[in-house]
């Protein structure tokens, strides 16, 4: 047990990782590690991503044609693979985001009917 204050961490729902990757890549291309970092950072480190699980997700997205990959060199001149949103992926992101909003709203209404 760590004595440090534990943040409450939430495991990702099935499938939401795809959405988060797409959202992250909307800001520009990035390599795997950077994507993981961005997801953790942008969620104030609430969302716990087991960084490895990023890779099956990335490959799934490539296979669907939503993101593409290209070779490049990173900021410190190291070889890296950069992932980039495709046009198809961009459209998919809109669809997925709308779906997510709907789902989140619905769940929220059920959980807090009085509000």
């Amino acid at each position: 047990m760590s004595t440090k204050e534990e943040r409450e961490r939430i495991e990702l729902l099935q499938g939401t990782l795809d959405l988060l990757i797409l959202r992250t890549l909307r800001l520009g291309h990035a390599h795997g590690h950077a994507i993981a970092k961005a997801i953790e950072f942008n969620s104030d480190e609430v969302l716990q991503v087991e960084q490895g699980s990023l890779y099956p997700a990335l490959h799934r997205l490539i296979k669907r044609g939503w993101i593409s990959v290209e070779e490049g060199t990173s900021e410190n001149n190291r070889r890296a693979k950069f992932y980039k949103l495709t046009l198809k992926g961009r459209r998919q992101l809109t669809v997925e985001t709308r779906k997510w909003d709907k789902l989140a709203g619905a769940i929220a209404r059920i959980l807090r009917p009085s509000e």
Partner: protein
Amino acid sequence: MWRRKRMLKELDEDIREHIARETQDNIERGMSPEDARHAAMRKFGNVTQVMEETREVWSVVWLNQLLADIRFGLRMLRKNPGFTAVAVLTLALGIGANAAVFSVVYAVLLRPLPYKDPSSLIVLNETTPMVGTVSVSYPNFLDWRDQSHTFSEMAAVRGVGFNLAGVTQPENISGGAVSPNFLSMLGVRPFLGRDFDASEEKAGTPPVILLSYSLWQSHFGGDPNIVGRTIKLDDRSFTIVGVLPSNYRSLDKTDVMLPIGVWATDNSEDAKERGSRGDLGVIGRLATGVSLTKARAEMEGIAARLATEYPASNDRFGVALQPIRDAFVSDIRPAILVLFGAVMFVLLIACANVANLFLVRGASRTKEVALRIALGASRGRIISQMLTESFVLAVLGGVLGLALAVAGIGGMSRLIPADMLSGATVNLNGAVLLFAACVVALASFIFGLAPALHSTKPDVQSELKEGGRSGSAGAGQSQLRAALATAEISLALILLVGAGLMMKSLYRLLAVDPGFRPDRVLKLEMDLRTQQYSKDPAVLNFWQQVLEKVRVLPGVEAAAVGTAVPLTDSHGRADVTMEGMTAPAPGNYPHPDVHIISPGFVETLGIPLLRGRTFTDADDEKAPLVGMINAMTAKRFFPKEDPIGKRFMFGHPSTDPPKWYTIVGVVGDTRLYGLANPARLEVYVPFRQNPRSYMALVVKSGADPAALTSAIREAVQSIDKDQPLFAISTMKELVSNSVATRRMTLVLLGLFSGLALVLGAIGIYGVISYSVAQRTHEIGIRMALGAPRRDVFRLVVGQGLELAGIGIAIGIAGALGLARLMSSLLYGISATDFETFAGVSILLALVALLACFIPAQRAMRVDPTVALRYE
């Protein structure tokens, strides 16, 4: 696939890079390098598992799915052993019959002939309106070869028989005397030794010989040093120059092959006489780019020129060309194609039956399917899974079917007359297996698709809402099943009509009077070929001794010799001139079959004497020349007079001095060329006045004629120990063999149509009993409202008969169209024979009635109170 490879190639590198970056970040946060690395690893998770999952993203989904579907299919089939057994057996019968018949189709019609470019090889014959297709005369062949340009090569093959003595049992072997380019034109190379040389075409060439592979094996033990050794044929030594390859196939049996020059030396007259046409065939290879039509036109021109140039021998003689494949398959092709069509029908019926089974079972699975669709399974996914299930079933049926086919092939090769196959071997080979695999795939589609499409129709989802009363299938399914049963009935009817027509034809054919009594008569042939028989008195003496010795054997009632026995291949024909006849054009002379016979020949064969007398021992070489004619000849030439005492001569009047034969008797016509072929003109002359070295001995016995064989052989060999007897068979066998193709067709067609009938009956039974089960409620109501049981019975049977009626009507229409295709196999009836069609329709209607009877009785026994209480 390649993308998958590229994407996964650098995965481990990517992961390593990722962990390195995280480690670096951790170090920057102040961790020790070791801790930093551990933390990074922890945060990353299980590397192996990540790799595994990523790989799975790219894995071939359909393959896994297929395996899962196959497992599922097998599980479903195991769960319903009754259904599986019936379906597999039905399919096995259909597929097995197809594989067996296809093995014959392949062997006879499809397997490439073992020649170079066989499609450009053409068999040529001469034709005459008097007889039809006949052998070619050697001088005509030489002119054809010289004058034609549409053929790049042409070669002749003359059939020759030899007596092989000095072995345990003397035997007669068949040889082919060929033009030296014969083998090289076919693209055949001797297995051992050399081919013939162009110089070996001329008369006077030394006697050399090629052995067939099988003769080399059986008589020389496959001696590798055979070349240069000699073989004694007749009483002559032949130098063996080589051995033919084991897969060599020829139109006629070939035990040995020799250059035609050797034959021309021995038969110098035959080789020069343009009018002599005896067992000589010609094969040509079309020049590049020349069509058969063009070659035919050129050859007809050449034949016409020769007819004008040599009217005495060639008047009205033409030429016939056919691809070599046709010469090989000859008469059996229509029978094979009819049978192949028939097994296809059997397979379709089997598929319809299995589809019906699937639909019944599909009904009980409707809810399962509806539920899965409701849970989000795509329709395509469920259809593909159901098709996999039917495919698994078809594979099981195919495996069992192949086992049946192996048995079937054995049975069929016994049924098919050997000479019909002309050397083709029927067996289970790669081509047959491939065909069976295609049939399996096709069948699983035929019987699987309709039920799969049907049970996944979107509207079946209403099943869930309705609570599905025992999975009651909708009207759509009933219609589909009724349509399948109807189709089965119509296919079965077509097959039954085919079998019926064959049966009636064969019956008619066997009822034909052959003109002789085949009972208890044995036929054996002998060819006197050695030097000791070069003079006529020696030949006559031999035959006389044979007759004397055989006639006194116990059990022998009569014996005689003759040159032409009905229903065999050996026939002699000649132009004759009737005394006082106005001389016709050379090609228009009467051309009867000539029988050279001993006294007692017509009596032994039971050919009736109609007028005058038959030959006696007094009709010998010193007596006046006498002859007999058959009834047809008498009617043709002496319609109003008594032919006895009239005279005829062989050849044309210019022959001198004329040798007139006085007619002493008239005998009945015989069917020399098969029961289905009409009788021809025939004349008979005594053998003592026309000595022949090749004769057939016919023996009438008091009991089983075949039992006399060894006694006769001993009698003959007591005269000449080296003289072989061959082509031994009873006349009954000859009659039976002459209808063998038709009998084979009948037996198999009968078998297939019987199968079709049973399957069709099962189909109707299934549909009706299922419909009764479904209408129990309705029937209950009807009975509760006072419908008499009789009406219920009539209702059910009526439904079945309606299906049968529609099926029969469609079937009759189909049979009217298809039976024409088998008209060449029919005899004495038309392809639209009313009796057969009516009989078969009634038979099918009765079977359908029977199939409805059980379900109808069940319907009558429905207890209205019970039927209504449910629900």
